């Protein structure tokens, strides 16, 4: 099981300038709502932006530790 704090840390490791908010919403510790704003997203498609966040989460979507992820990305000014 991962905590929101751990998820935030992983994302910040990959995107050091990011504003990150993480909320767990199922009560079961594996459904997360995440919002990330970073300058690194500038000029990238939404798919590419989301892939950067997925990459930061180090395979935890594949291994099922994160069951669901609602993700919102935006470019930080």
């Amino acid at each position: 099981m991962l905590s929101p704090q751990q998820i935030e840390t992983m994302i910040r490791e990959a995107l050091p300038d990011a504003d990150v908010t993480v909320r767990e919403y199922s009560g079961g510790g594996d459904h997360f709502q995440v919002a990330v704003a970073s300058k690194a997203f500038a000029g990238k498609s939404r798919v590419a932006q989301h892939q950067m966040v997925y990459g930061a989460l180090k395979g935890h979507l594949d291994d099922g530790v994160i069951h669901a992820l609602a993700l919102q990305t935006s470019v930080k000014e």
Partner: protein
Amino acid sequence: MDIKERIQQEVSSNKIVIFMKGTKEMPQCGFSGQVVQVFNVLGVPFETRNVLEDAELRQGIKEYSNWPTIPQVYINGEFVGGCDIICEMYQSGELQPLVEKALQA
């Protein structure tokens, strides 16, 4: 036919295809259900494929798209996104013209 070829055929022979959990009549996941709802509201024809009934597809589509989650929406052979992206594009008004253009092509 290996799974890559199978997926390739699905996305090239259907203008809009959603790889999802469940079917359009009976989605079996909140995110998949949301995506189906968006396309129902748009009132356009679309296909769905149920990954819960096909373990090879469930894994294969993630590798094919380089995207770890389901649902996955393909329009005109191109991966457009999952639930978050589709819903965002719908709300911003970007999705409708993209869909219309695809159906005309």
